[in-house]
């Protein structure tokens, strides 16, 4: 067995195998994107689902609410 063959069998093949396993492990989370984890910082742009024009919010006069509540987690 030449040096090159030995390198191929004992280095290249295991490394390829490790890389393959790593890819298989990480690909699902790459596809899903970052996930919210309580306690870590929030990364996303603000979204207002079902609401009005977000551009109006900066200039809007606050309106007193009729009711509601607050909570923390």
């Amino acid at each position, binding site marked *: 067995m030449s040096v090159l063959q030995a390198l191929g069998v004992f280095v290249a093949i295991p490394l390829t195998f490790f890389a393959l396993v790593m890819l298989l492990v990480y690909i699902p989370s790459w596809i899903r*994107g970052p996930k919210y984890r309580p306690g870590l910082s929030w990364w996303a742009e*603000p979204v207002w689902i079902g609401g009005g024009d977000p551009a109006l919010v900066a200039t809007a006069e*606050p309106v007193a609410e*009729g*009711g509601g509540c607050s909570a923390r987690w």
Partner: protein
Amino acid sequence: MPAGEAFSGRQLEAIERALRQAEKSSGLSYSVFVGDTEGDPRAAGRRLLGALGPKADQHVVSVVDPSHRDLAILAGSKAAYHLDDRATALAAMSMTSSFAAGDLAGGIIDGLRTLAEHARQPRTLHFDEV
């Protein structure tokens, strides 16, 4: 972490479906804001109601601030007749229990469902005036 979208396409779709169902079953309109409110989601919610203009009366806005782990549910002046504070507190509880487990979209959907279930038509006291 890099800036990106808060929800995947499928999650957004599910939230929008929950919004539509809640509107259909309770007659009030709902929206959800998710983003940084600098630690004061109530003030942010008031501004959001203000941005809605005349529609704000019949509107219920849920403000979720994941970076400060803070939540506020605000009902407009007319919507508050249908949704008392006990109902919004119940919805807030179902939201925060999911948020604490890291499930933002699921918590929002559960909370909207709870809000819609508890929005009741106020009792008519004067039938002769209807």
